[in-house]
């Protein structure tokens, strides 16, 4: 009888554990805002480092992008941006596109994030739906408030953003329409050519900006004395 009882107790325990499993699993779902907050703070801190602006080409961009890949899913973004055409691409084409589009996003996001430096990020609210979440933030400075939302997917306990919605305009959706019209007229090859061209011009612009910053820093020590009253 006693033996039967212990057996029974074990069974009961098993059932209890089984019942609790899904509950604890959903309990373990990490909070998207809790993950985003330190992540964005880290990004902004990196941008505030002195050498960021003066650095040559986009070495710093690469650092930022490496940091950002912790919570940005470039593959998922590329896939969504391609829309229905994605399924028709070969694996090589997919890789090629993801590579180039990630590069474009580097400039897109690094350019955006640079504005964050003199702004404050406040977390407004979040919404979870299954494995998706939207974290709503506000970019606040003295003159205006810009709503920025991160749309994320849960992958192995990590919330990975696959879209950024700035002032209600979804980045993915916006690129999607552009890509669609290019794909219709110029096919995949045309799209790749255009992507490369865009990245090249962005690189050139960035280098130009950077060399300007460097020049300014070099001449600033002498410029102070002769500076006209620009504060007028």
């Amino acid at each position, binding site marked *: 009888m006693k033996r039967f009882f212990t057996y029974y107790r074990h069974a009961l325990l098993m059932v209890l554990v089984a019942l609790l499993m899904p509950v604890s699993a959903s309990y373990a779902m990490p909070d998207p805002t809790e993950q985003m907050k330190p992540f964005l703070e880290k990004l902004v801190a990196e941008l505030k480092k002195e050498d960021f602006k003066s650095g040559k080409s986009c070495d710093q961009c690469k650092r930022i992008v490496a940091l950002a890949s912790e919570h940005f899913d470039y593959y998922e973004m590329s896939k969504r941006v391609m829309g229905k055409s994605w399924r028709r691409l070969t694996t090589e084409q997919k890789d090629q596109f993801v590579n180039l589009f990630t590069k474009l996003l580097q400039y897109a996001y690094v350019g955006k994030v640079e504005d964050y430096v003199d702004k404050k990020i406040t977390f407004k609210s979040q919404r979870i739906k299954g494995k998706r*979440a939207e974290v709503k933030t506000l970019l606040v400075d*003295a003159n205006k408030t810009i709503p920025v939302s991160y749309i994320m997917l849960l992958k192995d306990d990590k919330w990975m953003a696959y879209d950024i919605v700035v002032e209600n305009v979804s980045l993915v*959706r916006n690129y999607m329409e552009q890509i669609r*019209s*290019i794909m219709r007229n110029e096919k995949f090859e045309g799209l790749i050519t*255009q*992507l490369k061209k865009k990245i090249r011009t962005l690189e050139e612009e960035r280098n130009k900006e950077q060399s300007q910053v460097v020049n300014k820093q070099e001449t600033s020590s002498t410029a102070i004395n002769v500076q006209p009253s620009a504060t007028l």
Partner: protein
Amino acid sequence: MKYRQFFCSVALAAVLVTTGLSYAAPAIAAQDDSTVDFLDDAFYDNEPDVADIGDPLEPFNRAMFQFNDVAYTWVFNPVATGYSYVVPADIRGAVDNFFNNLREPLRFVNTLLQGRFADSGTVLTRFVINTIGGVGGLGDPAGRGLGYGPVYATLGETLAVWGVNDGLYLVVPFFGPSTLRDFSGDVVESIAMTTYYRMADLDSWEEAAAIYLFKQQNRLSLHLGEYEDMKKLSFDPYVALRNGYFQHRKQLRNHEVE
């Protein structure tokens, strides 16, 4: 006074043409009424169809886009940038508030026409509080402290509620992206706004145009660099702007509470 009559007849003609066109060709702009949910995969799967938006005038629109781009780059942007150096940001913000406040009566009428009565109350409250407490609308105490945030309501939206279709996508010189319906609405609204000019004893169209330009320049000075960012990062700025316009508008007209 003559220019008013002229504008009125132009606007009336425009509205008639719009409504006529939109009813005649309902297929052009099949409005998709689904609300946006970013967490829904349908939002990404459902590709925006150019036919949905209706851009049959694309060559013309592209030319106008180029025209606006040149006007922006060489005239409006330099002027607004210079202005932003001279005038501090909070004053520019107050000027923007002032013009915004002047428009509240129009918003009130539109919310009524759209059957959004709770919003009508908000608009009226905003107008009264901001005109008195915000010194003629220079401040926005109603939105900042009292929770009566700005309400979006235009004649274009009213026409949409009444079943008038967009007609077609239109890039208007000096004005930017719009649709036939919305632009007609804007023209009628700006004529309604001339009531203020009469109240202020302004009679020449030059003065009215100067005030309008000032208002637009002031607004632009608060949004410097946004257009450049958009242009820099897109392959086809024309398509990017068109898509951004429709996405933004859709959200503005989504009045469901968050």
